[in-house]
């Protein structure tokens, strides 16, 4: 850093600092003159908005921590005291509480933007993975933060989610005891969660720094998904995008304020205003809205995976690797591949039916000898769904980035988006809910199937076979063409 030729600043104080620590030079390079594609749309605002939300959470969180008490007998009352007695405490808490939701809104839009315009592709794979690390850390932070007010949802959400880890074979129970520091969610759990809730946002901050560093190495993607070819394709970040980001931020914060001031509890669950009671579980436990699609995938696995089903799935995986992922099959020819495919499918279906109908008494199909019981299957599915996002750059190797020029990718991806929202709805319903007599978990399973199918099958297939539309020669040319078209219409 520091040894590059440096331009002098006019202000003597700035110059004095900068010649010793070239911080102003770096700021100017990365945020002042930084060459940025000139065709951004409003989807490119959400990175800056997410950054604003992170800072908001840290500032309000630190003040809340000054009034909060992490003890099972005092936590709920200390939050109520913040709401009633601390000067402006209600405002700080509502900013923090709704801030978590709006942070997730910003980050979800940011992620969907990246998927739609192919920002995860070469050379931005590491940038994408750092983003996913941030997403995981955010989920951990928000889950732990929701436990702190020690209401009924805090307590039972913590119980159900930590119990997920008991699904891990052999060591699961020990891990859960280690997380709790006891034999149930209790005071030791609350105090360590508070310590972690304070720590993790700063870890996020550090990863955000790496994320932006990686961004400034590759430069930004853009709605056309084509590379910047020269200075005519870019404009300096300041003032153009500082202004555009600022405008978008103001609109976003206005909506955020509507929630803070007019419907602060709309996104939360009223049961969390009942103090935690270890003796009574609320009738219907739901996680916060931003976890619902993943929660639905967790609950979609209601069956045990016995040896038949696992063997069937393994055969299907062989076909997937040979015929879908490889450009040319290496070990198998088409007829054998088809046979394996049929055998795998039949075996998996047989295993499923054998599990559903325990009274058939088929050897080795009993629920208690299934290598992957339903609970473990659900947990693997949920974590697997996030793993898909991590490896997305290697599943989609199509040379065109932007969905604008890939009609098939666009259609299948937008369908994924709609189904993801539908999964969120399913996750919000009671476990035994049904539509027209069909249990909702069946729909959940079908949508989960599409989710994984999109990543594991559709993306690799499209990478090989989708032709795509003709790309413009440069950003500059595309912008000019649009401008001429517009002038032609108005003249």
């Amino acid at each position, binding site marked *: 850093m520091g040894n590059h030729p440096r331009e002098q600043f006019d202000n003597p104080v700035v110059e004095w600092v900068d010649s010793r620590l070239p911080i102003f030079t770096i700021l100017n390079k990365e945020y002042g003159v930084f060459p940025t594609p000139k065709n951004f749309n409003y989807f490119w605002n959400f990175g800056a908005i997410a950054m604003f939300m992170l800072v908001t959470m840290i500032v309000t969180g630190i003040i809340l921590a000054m009034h909060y008490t992490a003890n099972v007998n005092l936590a709920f009352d200390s939050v109520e005291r913040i709401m009633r007695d601390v000067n402006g405490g209600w405002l700080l808490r509502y900013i923090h509480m709704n801030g978590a939701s709006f942070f997730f809104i910003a980050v979800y839009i940011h992620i969907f933007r990246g998927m739609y315009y192919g920002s995860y592709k070469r050379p931005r794979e590491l940038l994408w993975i750092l983003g996913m690390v941030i997403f995981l850390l955010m989920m951990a932070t928000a889950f732990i933060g929701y436990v702190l007010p020690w209401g009924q949802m805090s307590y039972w959400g913590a119980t159900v989610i930590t119990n*997920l880890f008991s699904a891990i074979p052999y060591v699961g129970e020990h891990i859960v005891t280690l997380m709790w520091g006891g034999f149930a969610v209790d005071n030791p759990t609350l105090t360590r969660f508070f310590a972690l809730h304070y720590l993790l946002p700063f870890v996020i901050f550090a990863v955000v720094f790496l994320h932006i560093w990686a961004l400034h190495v590759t430069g930004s993607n853009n709605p056309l998904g084509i590379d910047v070819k020269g200075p005519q394709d870019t404009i300096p970040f300041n003032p153009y995008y500082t202004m555009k980001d600022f405008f978008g931020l103001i609109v976003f914060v206005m909506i955020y304020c509507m929630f803070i001031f007019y419907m602060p509890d709309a996104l939360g669950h009223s049961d969390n205003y009942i103090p935690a009671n270890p003796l009574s*579980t609320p009738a219907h436990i739901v996680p916060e809205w931003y976890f619902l699609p993943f929660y639905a995938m967790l609950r979609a696995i209601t069956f045990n995976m016995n040896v038949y089903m696992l063997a069937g799935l393994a055969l299907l995986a062989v076909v997937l690797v040979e015929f879908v992922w490889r450009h040319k099959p290496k070990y198998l020819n088409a007829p054998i591949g088809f046979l394996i495919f049929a055998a795998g499918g039949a075996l998996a279906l047989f295993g499923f039916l054998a599990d559903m109908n*325990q009274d058939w008494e088929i050897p080795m199909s009993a629920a208690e000898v299934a290598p992957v019981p339903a609970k473990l299957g659900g947990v693997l599915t949920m974590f697997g769904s996030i793993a898909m996002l991590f490896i997305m750059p290697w599943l989609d190797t199509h040379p065109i980035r932007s969905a604008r020029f890939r009609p098939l990718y666009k259609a299948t991806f937008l369908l994924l988006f709609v189904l993801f929202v539908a999964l969120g709805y399913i996750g919000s319903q009671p476990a035994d809910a049904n539509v027209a007599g069909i249990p909702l978990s069946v729909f959940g399973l079908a949508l989960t199937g599409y989710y994984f199918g999109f990543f594991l099958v559709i993306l690799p297939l499209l990478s090989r076979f989708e032709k795509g539309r003709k790309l413009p020669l440069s950003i500059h040319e595309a912008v000019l063409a649009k401008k001429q078209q517009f002038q032609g219409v108005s003249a």
Partner: protein
Amino acid sequence: MSAGANIQNGQHDDGETRRGFMQMLAGAFGAVGLGAFLVPAVNSLNPAKDTLALSTVEVDLSDVPVGGSKTVMWQGKPIFIRHRTAEEITEAEDVDVQTLTDKQTDESRVEKPEWLVVVGVCTHLGCIPQGQKTTDNHGEFGGWFCSCHGSQYDTSGRIRKGPAPKNLAVPPYKFVNDTTIKIG
């Protein structure tokens, strides 16, 4: 270059240097030291002595009528105690064990057939099933019903339907006298 031999730091014929060895040694000591710190650091998060000390309770059963229930706390978890009626006992004993998810006879789950003592925590994801009050939903099998994801337990606390993999656990307990048990 003859003086250089010293600076080479005792090079052996096989190209290994004393410095290389020292670096490996230092690395190994560092790794052992880190491990020696990590074990107690992580272990400190396990249940502490005072948490473990709360691990026995005595319960007086004389006030629980036949057909009635009692809930007590043990290790931060509710313990369901049920004074079972004669029908409930026969119901529990008559089940064909082979048809169960978690194959346990009723005899193996009780000290005395009239008293069922189980940990009141659903073995699925840890909710508290309903069924301790007579007005509660007892599920299809007359025991307990977990509303979180719909697990149903019978009058022996065994899982009969729903996602839970195991029967309600039986805590270690013994009868101190006819009407008192000691759990833990």
